[in-house]
């Protein structure tokens, strides 16, 4: 199995004195579904931006199909990697269909127009994300959850081997959460896509992802492997069942979690001190 994205000792900081990411190394193999998990401010979105070539790491390298990401042109990256981010800037009333069609730009010529094939692909992406009914509406007039599905439709229309998603289901209801994860899983398996998704939904990650990358905050535990210059462990990658354990999650997030087993997979539930079941301890199965 080839490596789609290989990250070697990258560090990044927005300000000269501080580092958001430090000594991060991992590999996303082609055709896998990788979850990126970690507390707020640990650099998950920054990591996605670096993997997508939007930010330049201060040190270390990112290899895309074995070649340094910096050696690709912006357009060449856009043919290989799609980035779905949280941010939305309303712009002059572009409709949903127009927004999704923009993702076809890297595939047609400089002054090109979308071909019928591009239009079909965009229409298909809308239908897969349950957004066809919004096609002619201005994007800004949708709710946050509807818009999030449109952004995923746009990512599908860009049709690249690698998808990087920043909290793709943060605004979605239950039905659309599993809808999007089912969709991502199916394109991973059927089209052999590589998917890297930042998520706070550890339970969905456990159910759908193959591997998980857990990022620890700077004051996290120290460990022998994957440690930064300060001697602290900053990230750990492995099968979801090995990484998304109550112990690891408690260490990374600094909160108590309650866990149980659904069938094959574990579920994790954070419990604060004022929760109704705060008195419970340990694990249950069900």
């Amino acid at each position, binding site marked *: 199995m080839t490596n789609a994205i290989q990250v070697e000792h990258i560090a990044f900081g927005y300000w000269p004195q501080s580092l958001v990411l430090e000594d991060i190394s991992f590999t996303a193999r082609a055709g896998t579904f990788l979850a990126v998990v970690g507390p707020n401010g640990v650099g998950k979105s920054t990591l996605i931006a670096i993997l997508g070539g939007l930010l330049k790491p201060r040190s270390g390298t990112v290899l895309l199909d074995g070649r340094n990401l910096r050696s690709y042109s912006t357009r060449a990256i856009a043919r290989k990697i799609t980035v779905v981010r949280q941010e939305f800037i309303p*712009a*002059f009333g572009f409709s949903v269909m*127009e927004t999704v069609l923009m993702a076809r*730009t890297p595939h047609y010529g400089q002054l090109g127009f*979308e071909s019928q094939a591009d239009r079909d692909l965009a229409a298909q992406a809308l239908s897969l994300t349950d957004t066809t009914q919004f096609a002619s509406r201005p994007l800004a007039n949708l709710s946050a959850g509807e818009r999030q599905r449109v952004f995923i439709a746009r990512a599908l229309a*860009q049709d690249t081997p690698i998808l990087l998603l920043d909290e793709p289901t943060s605004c979605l209801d239950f039905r659309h959460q599993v809808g999007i994860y089912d969709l991502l899983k199916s394109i991973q398996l059927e089209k052999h896509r590589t998917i890297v998704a930042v998520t706070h939904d550890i339970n969905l990650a456990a159910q759908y992802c193959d591997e998980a990358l857990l990022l620890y905050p700077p004051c996290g535990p120290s460990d022998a492997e994957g440690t930064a210059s300060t001697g602290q462990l900053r990230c750990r990658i492995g099968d979801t069942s090995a990484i998304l354990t109550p112990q690891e999650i408690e260490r990374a997030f600094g909160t108590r979690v309650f866990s149980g087993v659904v069938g094959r997979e574990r579920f994790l539930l954070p419990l604060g001190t004022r929760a109704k079941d705060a008195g419970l301890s340990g694990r249950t199965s069900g």
Partner: protein
Amino acid sequence: MSSAGTIRRVRSVHRPLTPRMLLFRIVAAVVLLVLIMFLCSLVGPQDISLKAAMSRPANPAIANPSHQILVSVRIPRVLLAAMVGAALAASGVTFQALLRNPLADPYILGISSGAGLGAMLAIISGFSWTLWGRSPIAVFAFGGALGTVWLVWAIGRLTGKYHTTGLLLAGVVVNAFFSALILFLVSIAKSQELQATMFWLMGNMIEEDFLVLWVGGGCITAGIVALFFLSPQLNIISIGRQDARSIGVSVERTELAAFAVSAFITAIAVSMSGLIGFVGLIIPHAVRLVLGPDHRQLLPVSSLIGAVFLVVADTVARVIVAPAQLPVGVVTAMIGGPFFLILLIRYSRKVYWPT
């Protein structure tokens, strides 16, 4: 149903653009422009008929006065109005897209005050030389416009590469500073100089040198064509720089090229005709309201409609108080304002406005 629900059921009026639609609309706008230019060149303080202008004078030694008015006054003036209108509208479209700001116009980054200051300096210093047949006023205005945009751009870069607010604020402050300098010069100017300055600042359409028209028109046309080639990227940049990069647009390069080209054509327009407000702000919005936001269409159609609008406005300016003439800037606001408000009320319920 709640008001939010009603808003959300609104559909946009425009369909996604196809090459056929684009071609059809551009051809229609070109036909309209040619027709308007033709009609307006016959209208003026002295109406002339095409037949009179084209008829051969009985005595070849005496020139046909209608022909002379048409060729040496009306046609240059109509051509100038068309190219200035097109340049301002195209540049307005570009600035609105790049700054992601519906209030942006070609003057927002200080071109107007820079050009005004340049013109003022030329008038006060009383230069009498010419450069390639241009008066020092035009040359100084051109230099002042480009110099100011460069200054604002450089200051904007210092505030950070990743947002436009710094650039906009730099533009506003430089504009205010240069406007104060203009007022200072006005306060110490002699009355004759003052009149020349006011005449220039309010915009005028007098250009009789065909060579200047061809060169200026050629540069403006080339600039608009260049912007048209950037228009797919402008679409994508208007949804955000980071998203644009992840869709494969070289954001920095595109922004620099689009800024430079639109500043250049605006500076040409300003140096030829003075400050004409309103066209660069209103025409892009009017076209966007009616046809939708796709820049591949917005840019060429706005340019053509901007040309039509300024030709009409200038014709009104020269006939409405004939034999006197109004500054064309007064007319653009007086015709354009009510017309735009009608469009606004008619269409704005059907489109989304960025807030």
